[in-house]
């Protein structure tokens, strides 16, 4: 399995159409070292054995079972959960549950205040200690442009709007929930994206899951990247179309699917497909990779497919003007049929949008599940979007937006470079503010998260099922709100966090393998390819 993955990675790193890119496209992955893979599987093996042992003991009441039970009245009902369904949760996740859902009690800015919690029953329940961990460095929130603030022009405007409108809407867009502030926001979003028209929704997840069904249906084929977000997967499934999955960011795989689809038509009937819809994301939040958009657009044009681009993480976070991955590659937004994105991340608000041609938006206004049945966006949230967006566009008359964009891009480059110099295995594109660092082993997930918190740094750690089973990782989200000193603290701590939790180092010999791909004649000195080890 390991070899196969390495193979697929090697494949997908082949430069196919360098002429389509106007700048180097550097994305690196590293094959999981064999020793690490073996140890990781062993780790899971031990956890599983102990899991079974403890389940056995719980069954015979040797160990006290603290898990919530079915009501006595309903004991003879068909069990609500199959026993194996919760095996992972009960025996693996619970052990390290304290690394997630840590409650905040302030702004999720560059630093955050976390409510300190302890568990006296092995992570089944948590109690507040009454203490608050102040100024924990926040490497976990998707606050790319630092708009999560409680002071400043965004907050001020939101306060005014709350005073005027209150916080709810109590109606759908189609009925009585279409406020003037929504109209204003949608016009601004369309202008920001450079599209004819835009439509906004109250929840980012629902923007995907409730609009894809309006765009594709029976007899349509959705080509979806294997690492697409759950909301895209759900939307595709709800649409009733056929779904085929291509390898992550692999254009060879995508092209093959496109060709086969047109040549062979629908399965069994061999009728031609009604539509082909390619669904990709701008930045993949677990991988840190950026979609190879120039190639996707070339393929889409060649095979007359439609392109659905989910810019949840890339809008605001990429591109010289913060307009996402289209802006980053210097492409024309008109080449993307459906521009989708969320306001949760870079804009520090909530909700999502879809932008595109006027006909598309008109159709969605009348056929989107979300527009017809769901309550529209709360006014303060809409205002937060308006203010942060005008700031990014520089229409507020200041250079605050431009400064933040520059700061984010500098921070990203700096942080990624430093980590790489220290020899850690990090994934993803050099320009992506999402920085996954490989931990591999299940035990390290918990240990790393806890040790970092002890050192006053909040990071996100993820393991199976969010990642492949042997590729547990920690994830840092770089923000424009971080200062260079903050980032230095983070990487400084990493070096001393003890050998136990030290993440795996990249092997020097591997750095020169084809797993680093460079595009368009860009030349990188051998030093960059062979980072010296004493950096750590």
């Amino acid at each position, binding site marked *: 399995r390991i070899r196969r993955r390495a193979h697929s990675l090697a494949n997908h790193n082949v430069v196919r159409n360098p002429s389509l890119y106007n700048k180097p496209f550097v994305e690196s992955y590293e094959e999981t070292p064999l020793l690490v893979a073996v140890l990781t599987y062993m780790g899971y093996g031990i956890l599983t054995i102990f899991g079974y042992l403890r389940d056995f003991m719980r069954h015979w009441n040797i160990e006290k079972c603290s898990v919530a039970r079915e009501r006595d009245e309903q004991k003879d009902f068909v069990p609500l959960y199959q026993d194996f369904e919760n095996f992972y949760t009960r025996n693996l996740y619970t052990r390290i549950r304290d690394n997630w859902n840590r409650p905040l009690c302030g702004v999720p800015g560059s630093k955050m205040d976390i409510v300190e919690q302890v568990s006296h029953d092995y992570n089944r329940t948590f109690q507040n200690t009454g203490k608050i961990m102040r100024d924990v460095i926040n490497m976990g929130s998707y606050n790319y442009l630092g708009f999560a603030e409680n002071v400043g022009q965004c907050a001020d405007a939101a306060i005014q709007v709350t005073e005027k409108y209150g916080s709810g809407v109590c109606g759908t867009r189609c009925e009585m929930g279409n*406020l003037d502030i929504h109209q204003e926001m949608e016009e601004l979003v369309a202008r920001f994206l450079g599209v004819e028209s835009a439509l906004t929704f109250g929840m980012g997840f629902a923007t995907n899951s409730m609009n894809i069904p309006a765009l594709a249906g029976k007899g349509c084929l959705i080509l979806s990247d294997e690492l697409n977000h759950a909301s895209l997967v759900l939307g595709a499934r709800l649409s009733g179309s056929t779904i085929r999955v291509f390898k992550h960011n692999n254009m060879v795989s995508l092209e093959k699917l496109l060709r086969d689809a047109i040549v062979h038509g629908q399965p069994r009937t061999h009728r031609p497909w009604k539509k082909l819809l390619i669904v990709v994301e701008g930045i993949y939040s677990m991988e840190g990779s950026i979609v190879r958009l120039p190639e996707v657009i070339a393929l889409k044009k060649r095979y007359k497919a439609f392109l659905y681009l989910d810019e949840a993480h890339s809008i605001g976070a990429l591109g010289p003007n913060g307009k996402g991955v289209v802006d980053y590659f210097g492409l024309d937004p008109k080449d993307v049929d459906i521009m989708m994105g969320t306001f949760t991340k870079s804009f520090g608000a909530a909700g999502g949008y879809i932008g595109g041609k006027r006909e598309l938006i008109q159709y969605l206004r009348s056929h989107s599940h979300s527009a017809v*049945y769901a309550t529209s966006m709360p006014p303060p949230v809409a205002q937060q979007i308006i203010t942060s967006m005008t700031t990014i566009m520089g229409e507020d008359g200041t250079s605050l937006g431009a400064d933040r964009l520059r700061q984010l891009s500098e921070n990203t480059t700096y942080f990624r470079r430093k980590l790489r110099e220290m020899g850690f295995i990090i994934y993803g594109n050099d320009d992506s503010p999402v920085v996954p660092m490989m931990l591999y082993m299940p035990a390290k997930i918990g240990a790393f998260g806890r040790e970092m918190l002890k050192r006053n740094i909040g990071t996100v750690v993820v393991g199976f099922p969010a990642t492949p089973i042997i590729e547990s990782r920690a994830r840092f989200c770089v923000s424009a709100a971080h200062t260079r000193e903050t980032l230095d603290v983070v990487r400084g701590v990493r070096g001393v966090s003890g050998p136990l939790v030290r993440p795996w180092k990249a092997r020097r010999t591997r750095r020169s393998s084809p797993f680093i791909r460079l595009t368009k004649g860009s030349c990188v000195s051998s030093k960059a390819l062979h980072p010296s080890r004493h950096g750590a």
Partner: protein
Amino acid sequence: KLCICCICLGLYNNKNRKEKRKTKMASGQQWVLVEMVQAFYEAPAYHLILEGILILWIIRLLFSKTYKLQETNKLTEKEKEELIEEWQPDPLVPLVSKDHPSLSYDIVTGPPSHKIIINGKECINFASFNFLGLLDNDRVKQKALTSLKTYGVGTCGPRGFYGTFDVHLELESRLAKFMKTEEAIIYSYGFATIASAIPAYSKRGDIVFVDEAACFSIQKGLQASRSVIKYFKHNDMEDLDRLLKEQQLEDHKNPRKAKVTRRFIVVEGLYMNTADICPLPELVKMKYKYKVRIFLEESLSFGVLGEHGRGVTEHFGVNIDDIDLISANMENAIASIGGFCCGRSFVIDHQRLSGQGYCFSASLPPMLAAAAIEALDIMEEDPDIFTVLREKCTSVYHALQGTSGLKLVGVPLSPSLHLQLERSSGSRDTDQRTLRRIVDYVSLREVALTIARYLEKEERYLPPPTIRVLVTVEQTDEEIQKAVSCIKEAALAVIS
């Protein structure tokens, strides 16, 4: 041809040998083998070669596929290119006719509170789900503002990754306390609540019994679950009983499958589409009789029905623990955003890892959670508010009876009523236009109403076109009088 030749030769050779064998047969069976070896030595070379070829040929015939579909069907690259060149997709979206009602939304200037400015005209609001008038309540606003000043607007993350705030935890425990259940879980979008909750429990192969008037988010949740869906007639317990009995028979046939097939009844407390109440006590009886779990969607009944606004369980005096899961949104009576599920920890906790809309979505902005907490405070402090609402609902219900040409759909206790054409013209579009004229007529007289909107092609059971009449505690008796007489006048003017 060659093949036939070989076979002929082979047959000829065999025939020769068989004749030879026959003559010696009498001398005993033991000689057969020896003779065969002898014959082999004696046979001429051409004979052996031919026989060898024959054997090889037979082996080939045995192992080769008789008919090679792919080989004959294989397209050349050029043909593929031509196919790709020829293929034309459907347009991404069909054109929407210019007069589609959704293309000209009514524009509300300012807050959609008791007095609402629609398309520049101030009206009394009978069109927002603001039942308790909490939308522009000062206390709620102040609480939201304080929260905004502490937390900012967005949460920048899902609940798992630093998107949990202390207010979320507080709201969850407050909701659980208010509903008198063990646990509650909040979602950041009302629509996504039940739509995520159903597929968290009901999987492929499980069976869900659903009222056919169930709202759209339930329908989507069912679709996502990929379970077997059985619709029963709206509020018809006999029909449900029939389906459950049928299932019981099925179970007897296949007890092993029955032991792992989960079953659920999904109903709404107060139906969005028909404005009537589900017969909960009967449903609970069915639950224990047939061992089916009940999921109850209370978006309209939460904060409306019952002495303390706890919804349809309180209305009927049903023990809330008998309902496996209650889901409601906080976008109607609570006048905030989002939704919640509540019930026993055994059930609810599962959603924290399996509720898609919970795990994979950014959490609710803290200021909206804070507003919801304050709304709960108000509801707890002053349960009279529900009595007032009930009185208003009943009075609107009775006043709207006997409107010429219009039929009132719903029960007296429902704050969300439907006015339906008594005689449909037979065309949905025409009906819709007639109703729209009524809405326009009353809006000129400063009463805001709205037409209930549906995705006509997607609804499982499409309700007839109606005007929504939404009752709130803020509407005074005079205003109700005025609105009712306006509607009656409009109906006379438009329909006759």
